[in-house]
């Protein structure tokens, strides 16, 4: 089977070719079959690989396929090689599994859209790029996927380009993530300069010979992390993600919740060994993650757009994952990545179903009382909300609890404290969302009110299929480890922890992590109780405010300043607008102006002055040419002068 790894990314690529080149001639039905089919088949292929991997003894669970040597010069070579190990296998399942369901859902959601074929082409291209990113066995190929997903994200955010806001959001995403990507690219060149190879395994081997805290390693890991910050929308490059909600909702679910934004987390997790050797970088990762988690959650408290609440929630949850990575709880981070992929995908698709039901309204102030009218959407979203809030035994509880527990036991009390605060906020804003949308009395437009309808089955079935893992995945992956396993007196790590162990073993050793005793009737039990209690507290508070009785729409009690800061997203957008759009635009315009006018102008003052006289050959402006010539002469003098100075040293 391992000679067939290439099939996994190749299938979506086939979809791109078919829908991209023949899309205009195919019926919508054919487009959907191709678009979903290739991802479905890729999911099956991924399952096959997974099965093959499980059949191997734990420490040999690596499948590698070299397609061909891409770039070679001297002793340097970069291959187009695909690598399946426990970590990438897990990501493969999330990407193809969640991806397939979202593709299917899209058939209903995008029904009748003018750009139907284009949509599936982009979505398949995205899946292809994401799979390349996940499977890459060297940095260069990783970069291919990295750029690819960025490009698709950009195209899909601006998919409804007729709306100005969508086009602007695409642009914003592009500019912001580019900053991170520059860091990423420079990081790769530094990897190459330091280790002479870009193969991840060889880099690990070479890095192992460097001392812990080596400056080059710290620089590399920080630069690569800058890439992750851009892609995973962490502070301060987070501004693009909320705006990315301008894209079609399934895109928000797939790219901006379940998969692409987790690429940064995956990157750090993949390179955990390098980070283990760079304690400074790890601390930065933890700090950025922790700050983003609490910051984004605080904004999520007051947003009125249903998708924006979810967007800020995604930021916050990604922050959680980075915080986990930063403290060295890598398994917990991947655990949360997986469970989050399912329940956040579910919540987004649910919100899409809601938006559909109330005729493209996204403002929660114009919803309410929808529970009875769209029951499938309501129940599945409720499951998602309970899951993300961290109420046992749903999926979010296990992964979140593992992060909090590890942070606490590894001595990162501040990360734990932030985590607890975020847990309250998460529960609160999620149930605020549920309350405003589904509970209380209807505030829907009277014109739309009678036409509210549940979504077609092609949309509700994926919702349920995502709801099931949102319920059981956490339990399943944690079994038979803590916390539940311990309750029944079982020992050993959970399924996922055991599965990923071969990948992380060495890194854990470097960090000096030991298998911590798990005391369900001791400290761990207390920690669990705390996290469950705060989650319940947040839920109850939201329920009281936005629950059965129609709640007040403005949050009472909070100081006006804080409320305003949250509503205005801490003014980050304004700052960025100023820096990148206003100042950046001026710089480009200025540079042009400077090049055209001032460089000439200065020379103009020195040299002969000729005036632009209208018409005829005057446009040639002999004076102008003289200016150019003088520019050359001045350039020469400066250059020759500096030249002689250097030579004279």
């Amino acid at each position: 089977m391992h000679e067939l790894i290439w099939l996994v990314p190749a299938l979506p690529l086939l979809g791109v070719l078919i829908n991209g080149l023949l899309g205009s001639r195919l019926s919508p039905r054919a487009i959907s079959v191709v678009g979903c089919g290739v991802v479905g088949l890729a999911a099956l292929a991924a399952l096959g690989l997974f099965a093959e991997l499980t059949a191997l003894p734990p420490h040999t669970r690596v499948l590698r396929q070299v397609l061909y040597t891409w770039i070679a010069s001297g002793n340097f070579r970069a291959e187009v090689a695909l690598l399946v190990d426990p970590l990438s296998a897990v990501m493969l399942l999330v990407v193809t599994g969640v991806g397939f369901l979202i593709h299917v859902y899209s058939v209903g959601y995008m029904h009748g859209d003018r750009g139907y074929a284009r949509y599936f082409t982009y979505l398949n291209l995205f899946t292809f790029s994401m799979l390349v990113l996940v499977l890459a066995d060297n940095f260069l190929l990783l970069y291919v996927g990295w750029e690819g997903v960025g490009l698709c994200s950009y195209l899909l955010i601006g998919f409804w380009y007729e709306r100005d806001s969508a086009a602007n959001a695409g642009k914003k995403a592009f500019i912001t993530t580019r900053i991170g990507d520059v860091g990423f690219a420079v990081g790769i060149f530094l990897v190459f300069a330091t280790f002479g190879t870009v193969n991840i395994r060889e880099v690990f081997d070479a890095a192992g010979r460097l001392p812990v805290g080596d400056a080059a390693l710290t620089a590399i890991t920080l630069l690569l992390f800058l890439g992750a910050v851009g892609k995973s929308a962490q502070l301060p490059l987070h501004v693009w993600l909320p705006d990315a909600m301008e894209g079609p909702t399934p895109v928000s679910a797939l790219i901006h919740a379940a998969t692409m934004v987790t690429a940064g987390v995956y990157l750090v997790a993949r390179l955990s060994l390098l980070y283990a050797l760079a304690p400074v970088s790890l601390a930065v990762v933890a700090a950025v993650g922790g700050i983003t988690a609490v910051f984004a959650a605080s904004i999520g408290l007051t947003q009125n757009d249903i998708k924006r609440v979810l967007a800020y929630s995604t930021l916050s949850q990604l922050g959680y994952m980075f915080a986990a990575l930063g403290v060295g709880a890598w398994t917990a981070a991947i655990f949360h990545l997986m469970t989050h992929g399912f329940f956040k995908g579910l919540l987004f698709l649910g919100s899409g179903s809601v938006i559909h039901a109330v005729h493209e309204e996204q403002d929660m102030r114009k919803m309410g009382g929808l529970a009875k009218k769209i029951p499938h959407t309501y129940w599945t979203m409720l499951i998602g909300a309970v899951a993300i809030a961290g109420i046992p035994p749903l999926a979010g509880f296990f992964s979140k609890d593992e992060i909090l527990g590890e942070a606490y036991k590894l001595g990162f009390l501040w990360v734990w404290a932030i985590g607890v605060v975020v847990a309250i906020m998460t529960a609160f804003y999620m149930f605020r969302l549920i309350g405003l949308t589904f509970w209380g009395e209807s505030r829907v437009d009277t014109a739309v009110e009678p036409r509210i309808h549940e979504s077609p089955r092609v949309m509700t079935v994926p919702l349920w299929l995502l709801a099931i893992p949102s319920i059981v995945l956490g339990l399943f992956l944690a079994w038979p480890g803590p916390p539940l396993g311990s309750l029944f007196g079982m020992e050993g790590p959970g399924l996922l922890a055991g599965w990923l162990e071969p990948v992380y073993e060495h890194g854990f050793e470097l960090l000096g992590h030991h298998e911590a005793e798990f005391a369900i009737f001791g400290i761990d039990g207390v920690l669990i109780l705390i996290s469950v209690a705060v989650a319940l507290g947040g839920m109850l508070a939201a329920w009281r405010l936005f629950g059965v009785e129609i709640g007040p729409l403005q949050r009472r009690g909070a100081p006006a300043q804080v409320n305003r800061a949250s509503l205005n997203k801490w003014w980050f957008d304004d700052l960025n607008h100023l820096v990148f759009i206003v100042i950046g635009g001026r710089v480009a315009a200025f540079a042009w102006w400077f090049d055209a006018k001032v460089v000439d102008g200065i020379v103009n003052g020195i040299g002969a002055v000729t005036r632009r006289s209208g018409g005829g050959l005057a446009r040639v402006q002999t004076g102008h040419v003289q200016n150019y010539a003088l520019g050359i002469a001045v350039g020469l003098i400066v250059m020759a002068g500096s030249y002689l100075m250097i030579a004279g040293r």
Partner: protein
Amino acid sequence: MPDPNWSQALRTVAPELTLTIVALIVLVLDLVAGRGRKGALAAIAVVGTLLALGWSVSLWGERLVAYGGMVVADNYSLFFNIAFLAITVLTILLSTSYLRREEADLSEYYVLLLFCTLGMMLMAKGLDLIVIFLGLEILSISNYVLAGFLRTRLQSNESALKYFLLGSFSSAFFLYGIALIYGTTGSTNLGRIAQALQANRDPGPLFQVGMALLLVGFAFKVASVPFHMWTPDAYEGAPTPITAYMSVGPKAAAFAAFLRVFSQPLAAMQGEWAVVLWVLAALTMTVGNVVAIAQPNIKRMLAYSSIAHAGYLLVPMVASGELGTSSLLFYVLAYAFTTLGAFAVVILLSRKGEAGYEIAGYAGLGYTHPVLALAMTLFMLSLGGIPPTAGFVAKFYIFSAAVKAGYIWLTVIGVLTSAVSLYYYLRIVVLMYMREPAEESSAATLTAGPLVTLAIAAFAVLLMGLFPGSIFTLAQSSVFGL
């Protein structure tokens, strides 16, 4: 010194001779061929160029020195010559329908183009500063005329005149530089200059000034900042196929000679000129890319983009070494195909009277001409350095050469500026796919010549992006023994 071995001397310059003869034939046949039948002459020019190309290929692997050590046919010059000849063929293919449309269908066009190419070939083959200068002048003078070929158009005249005035200005610098170097070392032959420098470690300030003057001459020809000011005006006004040609051919030729002169006899002083080139490279990448952002006209945008790419080409010159020089060769090829391809799309979308160059006119091209838009996307991604295109691999090679030579900051500037460049390259992609087609714009007239160029370029860009191995090996074997 008469060459004892005439046949070897002839073999050394056989491709150049072929090209000259074909150019003369075209010139004579022009008397016979009536107006409107110049297509046949273009065909002869293509066949002649391909013949010269074949000759060059057959010389591959040899190292023939002739005419008292003035001219050499080694892999290095042959690599460039093959590239020049391929560029010329593609340019002729771009030109025929364009010239007919602009009513400038004269055979002198092809003759000048061939002579221009001849000059480029001599620049790559020259082992003597005088031969390099001769090549430069043959190239330049033909090029001035070509830039002003649309005699009735004001901009074309402006372009030619500006190019001519500034070009001769810089030629004077160049010649003066040669004179000073001759005065201090006693020779214009690259090999003997190297010997003289070895004998005398400190050649004195006059030599340094001579070297600086040479550098200015080359910097002008490759359009490096701050010697770039002529470029946008000259490129915008010239006939579009000539713009395409100018932004790849003469630039590549200048780099061929630049690299040979500065890596052979002046290699000993690398520490000195590398600093200057470092600054030039950084300035050129930055100014070229930042200014390109604000351009509303695609020809002008590509002109600034070509300035920026000259900056990227200076990076491996700074890095030097085997990896540096071979990555420069690879980059030249990648850049040439990508740019010619992009210009093929530009020409297909332009209209009579040099119209249709507004970038806004590309809106909705993805719906009106999906194949053209796809190709243009490919070329823009390649220019921006996004995988899996030739441009990405090329950028990877030059930056890894720089990193390996320890020029980390130059790499950082390079990566940053290519991130900036993506902004204006991808703006075109966005316009094509994410805007409604404008009322009357983007009505392409699909003619065969540009389409063939486009197909070849697209194929080359993908090939060099996905399977760069063989081309890079060629580039490596070309710089061996330089």
